[in-house]
């Protein structure tokens, strides 16, 4: 390979996590990714995953006698449309690792087939969405946090594992406009039951007892109002709680980033509700904001786009022809565990790997259409594969960063063989469904 053949593409956006790092550079040769610059190890793996062809679906596939055989796009679209149309209660799930454009198309298809539309937030920050709908929240962009924040709290969130560049790009280990000395001017507090890598870096590690976050937040709220609190709450001595509160009250600009440690444990949306109220009360002392650490790169987009279109961010039921919203009844796991769904279209997500066994047992019984580039646990259960071009690497699209800033994703290489963008696949499906309904 000669030097000339290598082409450097700059300002690439990493389509993996909600950080949407937009400073990535990629060397491409012969339509293959050869080097990545600036991306973290997880983002780099994603860019390289497009090169793998052996475990990549490059043609539409139909399962015949247990084995996948290639079929034409026309046949695949017709089969998929029929599966969705013939179902009483089709589930359309995923959407958080694709473009806003595709997410918008997903709504049209769900409406057309009278299905249940849900996205991965329902097993991630769904409870945060519920709490924010209840009590609101004070927010800021990551840029503002980087410029101003001097007390940074990660609560039930391990950025070193899930958002590897978050601390070095947006919060702790970065210089900001008003934080010229970077980390020297900032205090890092980590609330986590384990001594995670983020906790090891923290100035203060509050090693809360697992599942006792609600108690700890309540104690902090009480102490803030001058109410006497017990000597020990959630495994944390009173003295430490008061000390942290003092730091929080004296902050110039503080931020709480929270994760699954709050949403996936007992209490769920109540934990978030309580934490938001703590932040609200801290705002009578100084500026504080609270922000969910969104996982999939465009899970924020899924909620935002559907909210424009239907009024609701997730778990939307179109069975009556108009959108209804009731998490706890129309979430993907509800309608799977209760055995309601009789067909499923899965896009840009992997419930096979990330749903509890009981949900998967039901998924295994119903026809599954997977819009998925690679072999995954979900495709093991699928009868039809519609191979997509990977957004942000093989096709363009827009996504929302975790702080709701929209960013245009770039195309770096061409998609292999017959792969089509998610948006196009969903559009063709909707057209076919309309045609068949006539």
């Amino acid at each position: 390979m000669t030097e000339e053949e290598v082409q450097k593409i700059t300002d690439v956006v990493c389509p993996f996590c909600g950080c949407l790092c937009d400073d990535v550079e990629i060397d491409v040769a012969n339509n293959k990714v050869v080097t990545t610059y600036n991306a973290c190890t997880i983002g780099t793996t994603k860019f390289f995953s497009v090169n793998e062809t052996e475990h990549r679906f490059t043609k539409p596939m139909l399962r015949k006698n247990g084995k996948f055989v290639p079929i034409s796009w026309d046949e695949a679209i017709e089969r998929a449309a029929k599966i969705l149309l013939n179902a009483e209660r089709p589930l359309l799930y995923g959407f958080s690792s694709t473009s806003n454009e595709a997410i918008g198309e997903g709504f049209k298809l769900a409406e057309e087939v009278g299905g249940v539309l849900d996205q991965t937030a329902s097993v991630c920050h769904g409870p945060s969405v519920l709490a924010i709908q209840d009590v609101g929240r004070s927010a800021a962009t990551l840029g503002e946090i980087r410029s101003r924040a001097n007390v940074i709290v990660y609560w039930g969130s391990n950025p070193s594992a899930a958002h590897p560049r978050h601390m070095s790009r947006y919060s702790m280990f970065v210089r900001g406009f008003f934080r010229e000395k970077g980390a020297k001017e900032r205090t890092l507090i980590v609330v986590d039951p384990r001594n995670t890598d983020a906790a090891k870096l923290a100035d203060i590690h509050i090693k809360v007892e697992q599942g006792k976050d609600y108690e700890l937040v309540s104690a902090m709220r009480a102490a803030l109002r001058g109410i006497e609190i017990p000597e020990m709450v959630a495994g944390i001595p009173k003295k430490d709680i008061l000390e942290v509160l003092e730091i929080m009250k004296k902050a110039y600009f503080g931020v709480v980033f929270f994760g699954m440690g709050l949403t996936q444990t007992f209490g769920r949306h109540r934990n978030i509700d309580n934490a938001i109220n703590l932040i609200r009360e801290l705002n009578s002392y100084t500026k504080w904001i609270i922000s969910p650490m969104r996982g999939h790169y465009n899970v924020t987009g899924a909620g935002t786009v559907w909210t424009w279109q239907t009024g609701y961010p997730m778990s939307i039921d179109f069975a009556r022809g108009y959108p209804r919203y009731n998490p706890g009844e129309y979430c993907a796991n509800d309608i799977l565990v209760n055995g309601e769904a009789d067909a499923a279209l899965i896009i840009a997500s992997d419930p096979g790997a990330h749903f509890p066994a009981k949900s998967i047992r039901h998924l295994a019984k119903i026809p599954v259409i997977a819009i998925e580039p690679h072999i995954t646990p979900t495709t093991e259960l699928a009868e039809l594969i519609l191979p997509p071009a990977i957004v942000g690497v093989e096709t363009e699209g827009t996504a929302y960063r975790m702080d709701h800033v929209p960013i245009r994703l770039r195309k770096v290489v061409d998609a292999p063989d017959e792969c089509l963008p998610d948006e196009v696949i969903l559009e063709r499906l909707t057209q076919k469904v309309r045609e068949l309904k006539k």
Partner: protein
Amino acid sequence: MSSSIQVNLITGRTVQQGRALEGSKHSDEYTRAAGIIELDPEDMRKLKIYTGTVVKVTTAHGSVNVRAILSPNAPHPGLAFIPMGPWGNAVINTDIYSVGMPSFKGVEATVEPIPEGKVLSALELMHELQK
């Protein structure tokens, strides 16, 4: 007779599991990344096992074989961690408490060594659930 211990089980993200998410879920890399349980050294001692021993994790919701490893995030005696993925999801609580969210963290579990046991791959776990 081998001993067993009771733990509070949580699941969550790790860098290795994140790396295996895109294009590697069919591979051994994924099993090595997520078909494991991180235990506190004290709990390992109680079980009289070393890193790499296969253990069976059982909860009210199911059971699964994974490899025990010494937790890099210790000390957290009594708390065990399985990276997010089909192994952890075989044993977590499906109760969704009317908000659509299963309990991915905070499930009572029993851990017992089965040195001869086999850890299934992600795809094999799916085949089990199809039965």
